[in-house]
Protein backbone atom coordinates (compact mmCIF):
# COMPACT_ATOMS: atom_id res chain seq x y z
CA UNK A 1 0.00 0.00 0.00
CA UNK A 2 2.77 2.44 0.94
CA UNK A 3 1.17 4.55 3.68
CA UNK A 4 4.25 4.04 5.84
CA UNK A 5 7.63 5.05 4.45
CA UNK A 6 11.20 5.56 5.60
CA UNK A 7 11.76 8.27 2.99
CA UNK A 8 11.21 12.04 3.42
CA UNK A 9 7.58 13.03 2.81
CA UNK A 10 6.69 15.78 0.35
CA UNK A 11 3.21 17.28 0.39
CA UNK A 12 2.91 18.17 -3.30
CA UNK A 13 2.79 14.58 -4.63
CA UNK A 14 -0.05 13.85 -2.19
CA UNK A 15 -1.98 16.88 -3.44
CA UNK A 16 -1.43 15.75 -7.03
CA UNK A 17 -2.63 12.27 -6.09
CA UNK A 18 -6.00 13.52 -4.82
CA UNK A 19 -6.78 16.45 -7.10
CA UNK A 20 -9.20 16.10 -9.99
CA UNK A 21 -11.10 18.52 -12.25
CA UNK A 22 -14.29 18.17 -10.21
CA UNK A 23 -12.59 18.70 -6.84
CA UNK A 24 -12.31 22.36 -5.92
CA UNK A 25 -10.89 22.12 -2.42
CA UNK A 26 -7.84 20.35 -1.00
CA UNK A 27 -7.30 20.45 2.76
CA UNK A 28 -4.03 19.10 4.05
CA UNK A 29 -2.14 18.60 7.25
CA UNK A 30 1.53 18.14 8.00
CA UNK A 31 2.81 16.94 11.35
CA UNK A 32 6.39 18.11 11.87
CA UNK A 33 8.98 17.12 14.45
CA UNK A 34 9.10 19.82 17.12
CA UNK A 35 12.16 20.92 19.04
CA UNK A 36 10.50 20.38 22.42
CA UNK A 37 8.09 18.05 24.22
CA UNK A 38 6.58 18.90 27.58
CA UNK A 39 9.24 21.48 28.23
CA UNK A 40 12.22 19.30 27.25
CA UNK A 41 14.44 20.00 24.26
CA UNK A 42 14.21 17.34 21.55
CA UNK A 43 17.18 16.69 19.25
CA UNK A 44 15.73 13.96 17.05
CA UNK A 45 13.44 10.97 17.26
CA UNK A 46 12.89 7.48 15.96
CA UNK A 47 9.49 6.39 14.75
CA UNK A 48 8.89 2.64 14.61
CA UNK A 49 5.81 0.83 13.39
CA UNK A 50 4.08 -2.51 13.44
CA UNK A 51 4.39 -2.31 9.68
CA UNK A 52 1.72 -4.66 8.29
CA UNK A 53 -0.88 -3.51 10.80
CA UNK A 54 0.01 0.17 10.31
CA UNK A 55 -0.57 -0.27 6.58
CA UNK A 56 -3.85 -2.05 7.18
CA UNK A 57 -5.09 0.51 9.69
CA UNK A 58 -4.13 3.47 7.47
CA UNK A 59 -6.02 1.81 4.62
CA UNK A 60 -9.10 1.39 6.79
CA UNK A 61 -8.97 5.02 7.93
CA UNK A 62 -8.64 6.34 4.37
CA UNK A 63 -11.49 4.11 3.22
CA UNK A 64 -13.70 5.32 6.07
CA UNK A 65 -13.05 8.97 5.20
CA UNK A 66 -13.66 8.41 1.50
CA UNK A 67 -16.92 6.60 2.27
CA UNK A 68 -18.21 9.18 4.74
CA UNK A 69 -17.41 12.28 2.66
CA UNK A 70 -17.17 12.77 -1.11
CA UNK A 71 -13.40 13.03 -1.07
CA UNK A 72 -10.16 11.45 -2.18
CA UNK A 73 -7.56 11.06 0.56
CA UNK A 74 -3.79 10.58 0.50
CA UNK A 75 -1.85 9.65 3.63
CA UNK A 76 1.82 9.03 4.47
CA UNK A 77 3.54 8.39 7.78
CA UNK A 78 7.29 8.31 8.08
CA UNK A 79 9.30 5.89 10.18
CA UNK A 80 13.00 5.81 11.07
CA UNK A 81 15.15 8.63 12.42
CA UNK A 82 13.71 12.14 11.98
CA UNK A 83 15.23 15.53 12.73
CA UNK A 84 13.49 18.65 14.02
CA UNK A 85 11.36 20.09 11.22
CA UNK A 86 11.02 16.83 9.29
CA UNK A 87 7.54 15.81 8.17
CA UNK A 88 6.32 12.89 10.30
CA UNK A 89 2.84 12.59 8.81
CA UNK A 90 1.00 14.14 5.86
CA UNK A 91 -2.68 14.02 4.91
CA UNK A 92 -4.36 15.54 1.86
CA UNK A 93 -8.11 15.39 1.24
CA UNK A 94 -9.71 16.74 -1.93
CA UNK A 95 -13.42 17.26 -2.43
CA UNK A 96 -15.92 19.26 -4.35
CA UNK A 97 -16.50 21.48 -1.35
CA UNK A 98 -14.16 22.71 1.34
CA UNK A 99 -16.34 21.55 4.24
CA UNK A 100 -15.87 17.95 3.17
CA UNK A 101 -12.18 18.39 2.51
CA UNK A 102 -11.51 19.89 5.94
CA UNK A 103 -13.70 17.35 7.75
CA UNK A 104 -12.06 14.39 6.04
CA UNK A 105 -8.54 15.73 6.60
CA UNK A 106 -9.22 16.29 10.27
CA UNK A 107 -10.82 12.87 10.68
CA UNK A 108 -7.85 11.11 9.12
CA UNK A 109 -5.20 12.78 11.29
CA UNK A 110 -7.22 12.19 14.45
CA UNK A 111 -7.76 8.52 13.62
CA UNK A 112 -4.11 8.04 12.65
CA UNK A 113 -3.06 9.27 16.07
CA UNK A 114 -5.67 7.15 17.77
CA UNK A 115 -5.35 3.87 15.88
CA UNK A 116 -2.18 3.41 13.83
CA UNK A 117 0.46 1.30 15.63
CA UNK A 118 3.43 3.65 15.50
CA UNK A 119 5.75 4.54 18.36
CA UNK A 120 8.08 7.44 18.98
CA UNK A 121 11.37 7.40 20.85
CA UNK A 122 12.66 10.88 21.60
CA UNK A 123 16.29 11.85 22.10
CA UNK A 124 16.43 14.81 24.48
CA UNK A 125 18.91 17.65 24.73
CA UNK A 126 19.81 16.48 28.26
CA UNK A 127 21.09 13.16 26.87
CA UNK A 128 18.14 11.04 27.94
CA UNK A 129 15.94 8.95 25.68
CA UNK A 130 12.30 8.02 26.14
CA UNK A 131 9.28 6.39 24.57
CA UNK A 132 6.53 8.97 24.14
CA UNK A 133 3.25 8.11 25.84
CA UNK A 134 0.57 10.57 24.71
CA UNK A 135 -1.93 9.01 27.12
CA UNK A 136 0.25 10.34 29.95
CA UNK A 137 0.98 13.70 28.31
CA UNK A 138 -0.56 16.98 29.39
CA UNK A 139 -0.82 18.08 25.78
CA UNK A 140 0.55 17.19 22.39
CA UNK A 141 0.44 18.58 18.88
Amino acid at each position, binding site marked *: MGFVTDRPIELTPLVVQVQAPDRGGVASFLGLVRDHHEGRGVLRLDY*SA*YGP*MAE*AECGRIVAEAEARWQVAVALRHRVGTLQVGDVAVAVAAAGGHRDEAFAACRYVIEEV*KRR*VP*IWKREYYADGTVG*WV*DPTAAVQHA
Partner: protein
Amino acid sequence: MSSSVAPGLTVRVLLFGSYADALGFDQVELALASPATLDDVIAHLRALPGGDRLPPKPLCARNLAHVGTGEPIASGDELALLPPLAGG
Protein backbone atom coordinates in the same frame (compact mmCIF):
# COMPACT_ATOMS: atom_id res chain seq x y z
CA MET B 1 8.92 -20.41 25.68
CA SER B 2 5.97 -22.81 25.20
CA SER B 3 3.61 -24.74 27.41
CA SER B 4 2.64 -28.09 25.93
CA VAL B 5 -1.05 -28.93 26.02
CA ALA B 6 -3.24 -31.14 23.86
CA PRO B 7 -5.63 -30.24 22.32
CA GLY B 8 -4.11 -26.75 22.13
CA LEU B 9 -3.39 -23.80 19.91
CA THR B 10 -0.25 -22.07 18.79
CA VAL B 11 -0.01 -18.33 18.22
CA ARG B 12 2.69 -15.82 17.49
CA VAL B 13 2.83 -12.79 19.79
CA LEU B 14 4.62 -9.59 18.80
CA LEU B 15 5.79 -6.98 21.31
CA PHE B 16 6.66 -3.38 20.47
CA GLY B 17 8.37 -0.36 21.97
CA SER B 18 8.50 -0.25 25.74
CA TYR B 19 6.85 -3.69 26.02
CA ALA B 20 9.64 -5.31 23.99
CA ASP B 21 12.16 -3.42 26.14
CA ALA B 22 10.45 -4.69 29.31
CA LEU B 23 10.48 -8.37 28.35
CA GLY B 24 13.71 -8.36 26.38
CA PHE B 25 12.25 -9.92 23.23
CA ASP B 26 9.95 -8.71 20.46
CA GLN B 27 8.24 -11.93 19.43
CA VAL B 28 7.40 -15.32 20.84
CA GLU B 29 5.47 -18.44 19.85
CA LEU B 30 3.05 -19.60 22.52
CA ALA B 31 1.15 -22.88 22.82
CA LEU B 32 -1.97 -22.54 24.94
CA ALA B 33 -4.83 -24.76 26.01
CA SER B 34 -7.91 -24.23 23.86
CA PRO B 35 -10.13 -22.23 24.09
CA ALA B 36 -8.08 -19.14 24.97
CA THR B 37 -8.33 -15.38 24.78
CA LEU B 38 -5.80 -12.58 24.68
CA ASP B 39 -6.17 -12.29 28.45
CA ASP B 40 -4.54 -15.73 28.72
CA VAL B 41 -1.66 -14.56 26.53
CA ILE B 42 -1.20 -11.43 28.63
CA ALA B 43 -1.29 -13.41 31.90
CA HIS B 44 1.39 -15.73 30.53
CA LEU B 45 3.66 -12.85 29.52
CA ARG B 46 3.12 -10.92 32.74
CA ALA B 47 4.43 -13.94 34.69
CA LEU B 48 7.77 -13.75 32.86
CA PRO B 49 10.76 -11.70 34.09
CA GLY B 50 10.03 -8.04 33.32
CA GLY B 51 6.39 -8.88 32.67
CA ASP B 52 5.26 -6.77 35.60
CA ARG B 53 5.88 -3.76 33.34
CA LEU B 54 3.04 -4.89 31.03
CA PRO B 55 -0.33 -3.45 32.04
CA PRO B 56 -3.09 -6.01 32.66
CA LYS B 57 -5.16 -4.57 29.80
CA PRO B 58 -2.81 -3.35 27.07
CA LEU B 59 -3.91 -2.37 23.59
CA CYS B 60 -4.05 -5.58 21.55
CA ALA B 61 -4.21 -6.62 17.94
CA ARG B 62 -5.24 -9.88 16.39
CA ASN B 63 -4.35 -10.50 12.75
CA LEU B 64 -3.57 -6.81 12.11
CA ALA B 65 -6.73 -5.36 13.68
CA HIS B 66 -7.43 -3.84 17.08
CA VAL B 67 -9.30 -6.16 19.47
CA GLY B 68 -10.15 -6.20 23.15
CA THR B 69 -8.26 -8.42 25.58
CA GLY B 70 -11.27 -10.74 25.85
CA GLU B 71 -10.95 -11.64 22.17
CA PRO B 72 -10.88 -15.42 21.56
CA ILE B 73 -7.80 -16.54 19.68
CA ALA B 74 -7.20 -19.36 17.22
CA SER B 75 -4.23 -21.38 16.17
CA GLY B 76 -2.07 -19.53 13.66
CA ASP B 77 -3.12 -16.08 14.85
CA GLU B 78 -0.65 -13.22 14.80
CA LEU B 79 -1.23 -11.36 18.05
CA ALA B 80 0.39 -8.12 19.20
CA LEU B 81 0.61 -6.12 22.40
CA LEU B 82 0.76 -2.41 21.60
CA PRO B 83 2.19 0.23 23.95
CA PRO B 84 0.45 3.63 23.90
CA LEU B 85 0.40 4.76 20.27
CA ALA B 86 2.42 7.84 19.38
CA GLY B 87 2.07 8.26 15.64
CA GLY B 88 1.14 11.47 13.86
